[in-house]
């Protein structure tokens, strides 16, 4: 049985909101990958240089 509140069309702002949250996720993945690469190669890390 489906809940009462489903299948509501989104307003135009919503797609920009989703695009922005995707950008935030991409930043998180990029910063994580870069920081871990630096650390596992003994080059430094996220808060500062080695």
């Amino acid at each position, binding site marked *: 049985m489906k*809940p009462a509140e489903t299948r509501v069309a989104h307003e135009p702002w919503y797609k920009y909101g989703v695009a922005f949250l995707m950008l935030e996720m991409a930043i998180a993945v990029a*910063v994580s990958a870069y920081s871990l690469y630096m650390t596992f190669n*003994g080059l430094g890390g996220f808060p500062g240089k080695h």
Partner: protein
Amino acid sequence: MRSHKVEQLVIATVGFFWCFLMWFSTAAFSPSIAADYHLGIKDLGLLASSAIWMAPVGRIVAGWASDRFGAPRTFAAILAGCGLVSIASAYTTSYELLFAERVIVAIAGVSFVVGIQHVAQWFDSHEIGTAEGLYAGTGNVGAGVGALLLPRMFGTNYHDAFLWLGVIALVIAAWYLIRGRAAKTNERRIAARRGSDMRGAVFVWTRYIAIALMLAYAMSFGLEIAMNAWLPGYFTRGFHDDLLALGFSSVAGLQIAAGTFAAVESFNASLFRPFAGFMSDLFQHKGWTPLPFIAKELPYAPRLHWLGIALILITLSMIGLTVAGLSGSLPWSIAVLVVFGIFLSFGTGGTFALVPLLFPDRPGIAAGFIGGISTAGGIVYPLIFAGSANIHMGYLYVALYMFVPIVLFYFWAARHERHPEEHGLFDRGLVGQQA
């Protein structure tokens, strides 16, 4: 003056981002403050812990105030008050006075629940997850940005940093007052104000579903702030030889490597939070209700299921942290930690996609209770982690003895197919609510 809900979302997010920046700015400069005042390790610990002293009670009061007086006035008062004290702290020469002033500035952290209330008063139920996620996730990044940028911008000159943080807080407070609107409609505003009496607060505090959400937030955000404090020490001690092998031999080098792992977890927990809110909206949109026992017919039932999945994933990843730690593999521990940070965001984003829907007439009081008491987790978990004989076992103990009972309680509280908020420690009549 007319306004659009996106403008209100932007104002709330900028205000919250700045409050988080102020909240954690003391920690960013603690080495400089320690050097200036010749502080010992105990003084530093006290200074670090003082950041969350005001959160549990402060958030309850702030949530109530936002229902009572409206979010713009409440948020502007917090920004202006903390901003003025931050400016004063820039000119302070006594450590005792500086400590007291920075405790007051840390009140900025209570603004979270005010913005939650503000966004809830403007956005509709089908988009509330994404809206609250964008607000909270983007604002939370202020803590990481503070740790990353403030020492680079101001060096050891924390006086200038505190001055500019305070001045800009005053500018944002004025912007919030001028452009902020408390609610989309007068009806919503009046309903929130009407529900903000003491009986309304007691009603929310005694509902099983509110207690379940508070515990869910303690499992996610409470754990997030606990791990921020715990993880650097964990990696320094638990993987000391691995860090030495990577070339981090000095104390500063070990701090940087261990701090990096902690920061990666924190960064993911913040920046994936809007996605978690979006997933809650997606569950709602698709009508997904895969879990047993939890209600399937409530208007927001799919959101309850999404949060249930998040809580199970957090529990499993805590067990994974212990398994990876006991294996002695640093890369595996980091891999589990990255996933763990993302699962934490599912819990934080999933919780506040539900709170405004469960208590639409008391969004501030509910947000204050759920977002306030749960921060005590930041104090409790590190004590359990530190008390374990084996440094890797604390995650397993917390998962088994705290999180499994919390998840079971959540399933039990979310099982009602009609009005779960009707069920609580007292009958509705006893707390002055109409049956």
